[in-house]
């Protein structure tokens, strides 16, 4: 119970944790270009401290090389925490979360649209650079809205060269979409989020649904800002691990670490009843 209360308190500070991570990713005093950050941000930003894993993967694809470091890093992150970094550490996620606070009606995104993340991954991150090279207009970095915000606009301020039309159109559409949907980029197009979310079902850090506690009231489904079908879809690849559902009173959904397997977490009162 005490753990649950701690979780509830912690979830309230999610935006502040995201801001703290933003200060880590975009830190002019820190410059580690040889290290990939596990979040979606642009390494061409004048303040970026780490390399973007998607940018690196796309460049390596264009060079027909296997990006060992990126694949290894993503495997480590996906298997340890799944998409937890999406909900708590991604700077682009923070931007979308803040824009979502604008009081506009929020529309639902159909679940099938999350396949778009893998289309972007396969098409713009791997296939287009591999077959068309790094100068291709379909190269992810030439379309990426994060790149437009973090690198193309600072570049435009410096050189006076405006970002290309496709860039501006994509960013404009996304900013409009953010007003009416929660995290449209993360849920429909983000290739990094799609990759990390594959680990949601297997990762050491995961969400657990305690069926014994669940009253099937549907409060968790309503509380989920991102429209995940809770509680059954608790390990869904559409979840960004914001952990809002763990802050509900019933406590049927909770975050667990490596030591707590579903068997170990079974409610104590369930055992005598079964006998």
């Amino acid at each position, binding site marked *: 119970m005490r753990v649950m209360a701690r979780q509830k308190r912690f979830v309230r500070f999610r935006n502040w944790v995201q801001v703290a991570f933003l200060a880590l990713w975009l830190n002019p005093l820190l*410059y580690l*270009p*040889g*290290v990939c950050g596990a979040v979606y941000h*642009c*390494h*061409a*930003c*004048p303040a*970026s401290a780490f*390399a973007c894993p998607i*940018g*690196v993967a*796309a*460049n390596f694809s264009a*060079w027909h*090389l*296997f*990006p*060992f*470091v990126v*694949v*290894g*890093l*993503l*495997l*480590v*992150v*996906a*298997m*340890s925490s799944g998409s937890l970094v999406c909900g708590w550490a991604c700077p682009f996620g923070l931007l979308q979360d803040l824009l979502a606070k604008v009081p506009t009606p929020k529309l639902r995104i159909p679940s099938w649209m999350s396949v778009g993340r893998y289309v972007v991954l396969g098409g713009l991150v791997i296939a287009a650079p591999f077959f068309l090279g*790094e*100068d291709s207009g379909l*190269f992810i*970095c*030439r379309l*990426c809205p994060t*790149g*437009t915000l*973090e*690198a*193309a606009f*600072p*570049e*435009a301020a410096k050189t006076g*060269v*405006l970002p*290309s039309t496709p860039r501006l159109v994509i960013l404009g559409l996304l900013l409009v979409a953010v007003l009416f949907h929660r995290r449209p980029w993360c849920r429909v197009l983000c290739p990094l989020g799609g990759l990390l979310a594959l*680990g949601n*079902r*297997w*990762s*050491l850090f995961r969400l657990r649904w305690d069926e014994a506690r669940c009253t099937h009231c549907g409060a968790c489904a309503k509380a989920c800002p991102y429209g995940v079908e809770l509680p*059954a879809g608790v*390990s869904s690849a559409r979840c960004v691990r914001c952990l809002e559902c763990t802050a509900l009173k019933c406590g049927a959904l909770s975050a667990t670490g*490596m030591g707590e*397997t*579903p*068997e*170990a977490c079974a409610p104590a009162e369930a055992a005598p009843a079964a006998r």
Partner: protein
Amino acid sequence: MARIPGRFRVLLALSGLVVGLALVCYGYAFRATGLVPAPRGAPGSSPAEAPAPSQAPLWASEWDLVKGAAGDTIRRLPDGRLSLASAAAPGSPAPT
């Protein structure tokens, strides 16, 4: 969705972690393919609007971090291969 036994899941996750760490170590220590893009806003480092791929150096190397060979950069050779070239000692052996 079928429930995954807890121990099996933990074992799989740990295996993934070990393989991931091994890939990272391998990439950093032994292969130039562990290289990641470096200079902020440099031409060709992706979102710049008018990239100039022919301009070298475009990339700094993790190899530098591991070997402590400051000043080394990755260059693309005319035949398309990548080469580790030291600014101090041109023609140093390429790890690729």
